[in-house]
């Protein structure tokens, strides 16, 4: 690893994950700067989720190197966990708990002291506009609200970096917009955002993008740079252009 520079939130070199003979992530290298919104764009099965899971310490990489907030993803996974927030692809909060109880639980497993926890809950409830929903069972919330709650749970302990794995799947456009507004606010507050998506309009919101295909990163740069480089009007066109010949 060339540096321990704290300007990088994530630094990955030749990272590979194999499941048996299937190579899910194939020697990828990239870095994420502190405080940027970094997008991972790719079709289903491109290796986005596997990459996020390796960075979060949920699965062990097969080979390569990686650091999250300066900590090694092979040997310091438990230390990394204190610094990160994670929202998985699948909605994974407790349906039979109220909004508030979910927040208290997720704050609790990060070991937040009660006083700090109730302040953090208060703040996040205000920020995410959940006030009217606090006492409701999570089961009864519409998808858009659930998403907001999941994000709230993930940022309660004020992580340095937030991993969002297809956070807006199955959510209506208005809620998606509101969700991204919240993301931007977080980024302005200094949180690094690492987000995977296959919505092209969302890709445009990112500071930098990496396009993944069949386990490899096939393009990396800001949306502007990518559009310039491949002479396309939108990120969507860039993506289609890149993936099509690869498939043929």
């Amino acid at each position: 690893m060339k540096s321990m520079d704290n300007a990088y939130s994530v630094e990955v070199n030749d990272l590979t994950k194999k499941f048996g003979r299937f190579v899910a992530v194939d020697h990828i290298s990239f870095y994420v700067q502190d405080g940027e919104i970094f997008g991972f764009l790719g079709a289903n099965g491109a290796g986005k989720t596997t990459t996020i899971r390796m960075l979060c310490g949920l699965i062990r990489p097969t080979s390569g190197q990686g650091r999250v907030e300066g900590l090694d993803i092979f040997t310091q996974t438990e230390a990394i966990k204190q610094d990160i927030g994670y929202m998985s692809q699948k909605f994974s909060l407790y349906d039979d708990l109220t909004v508030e109880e979910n927040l208290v639980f997720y704050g609790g497993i990060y070991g937040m002291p009660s006083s700090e926890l109730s302040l953090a809950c208060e703040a996040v409830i205000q920020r995410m506009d959940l006030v009217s929903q606090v006492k409701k069972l999570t089961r009864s919330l519409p998808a858009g609200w659930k998403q907001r709650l999941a994000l709230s749970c993930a940022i309660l302990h004020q992580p340095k970096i937030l991993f969002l794995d297809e956070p807006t799947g199955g959510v209506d456009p208005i809620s998606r917009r509101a969700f991204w507004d919240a993301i931007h606010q977080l980024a302005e507050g200094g949180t690094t955002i690492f987000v995977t998506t296959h919505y092209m309009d969302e890709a445009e919101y990112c500071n930098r993008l990496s396009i993944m295909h069949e386990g490899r990163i096939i393009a990396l740069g800001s949306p502007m740079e990518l559009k310039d480089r491949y002479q396309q009007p939108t990120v969507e066109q860039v993506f289609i252009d890149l993936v099509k010949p690869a498939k043929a």
Partner: protein
Amino acid sequence: MKPRIVAVLQKEFIHIWRDPYSLLIVFLFPMMMILLYGYAITFDIKYIPLAILDQDRSPASQQLVEKLTSSNYFRITARLQDRRAIEPGFLHRRMSAVLVIPPDFDRRLTSRPETSVQLIMDGANANTAMIAMNYLKSFLTRTTLELNQGLLATPLEIEPRIWYNPDLKSTHFVVPGLIAILMMMICAMLTSLTISRERETGTLEQIFVSPIRPVEIIIGKVAPYILLAFLDAMAILGFSHWVFGVPIRGSLALLVFFMLIYIYASLSLGVFISSRTRTQQAALFAAMLGTLLPSVLLSGFVFPIASMPRVLQWVTYIVPAKYFLIQARGVMLKGVGFDYLYLPTVFLLIFGTLLLAVSVKRFKTNLEG
């Protein structure tokens, strides 16, 4: 710093509380089992349908039959005239045994040193047949002694006294076993589901990205069930004591202590199962196979361990229910103290701790496990 384990504990209590149906089952199911065992399913046999074929028709034979009728173990359902009537009687299930009194019964009873009557049993239900035969045997021994007015003295006489359960009431004998089995079922099933459910819904993944440690997840998830299982055990105990009069001759405190240790061992088994299974279905299946069957079949609940094949006898050493059964029967029926029952406790403690340690050790807070 609020311990992380408290967060898990609180959440787990909410889960239990918000699921009243499961709670209802946890408390009602044992009561129903005990009601069934207490009232309907009994190993005691009364009013065995008996047919008489009296070929003697003497005062002595009539006296014998009269005495049989007055005992409530038998019910005379037919008086046959002929041996040929026996088979149709069995086939129509009019009786399950036939007592044949030979023509020279009276004469032999008063003149010979030995007399015999014939007993023909319907062996289709071997268990009932055995019990009926033993009843009849002891009944006849007593009656003939009265009938022959001391002429026929048996040189060696057995005077049975059955200690601890003089009436041989099967509820007394079944309830301690039932407690053992129900506790095991509830503990193992509930806990085995609690972890695999979260694995399935994906919430476990969300927990794994937090700095929580395996031991905090496991203890936090198991502890609420210790309380639940304990309350359940108390309910079962109270129910069987007050409704069925099952005695608690020894110290109640000791029994409670044994129960807690047993619950600990059972919960550990449940945790072990759920840490090795991926889905709720697999967990439930493993819990059934791993706890219910051995507890019913290999604990000595119904089938005496001493009469099992050697290999199975060895297997019984790892069945926790076996140990609790010894303790429960000891305290409840015999009033035995701790000095006679500490060994099973030691075993259950080792068993539970070992399984728990292995589960915690093997439980990885990632998705590779």
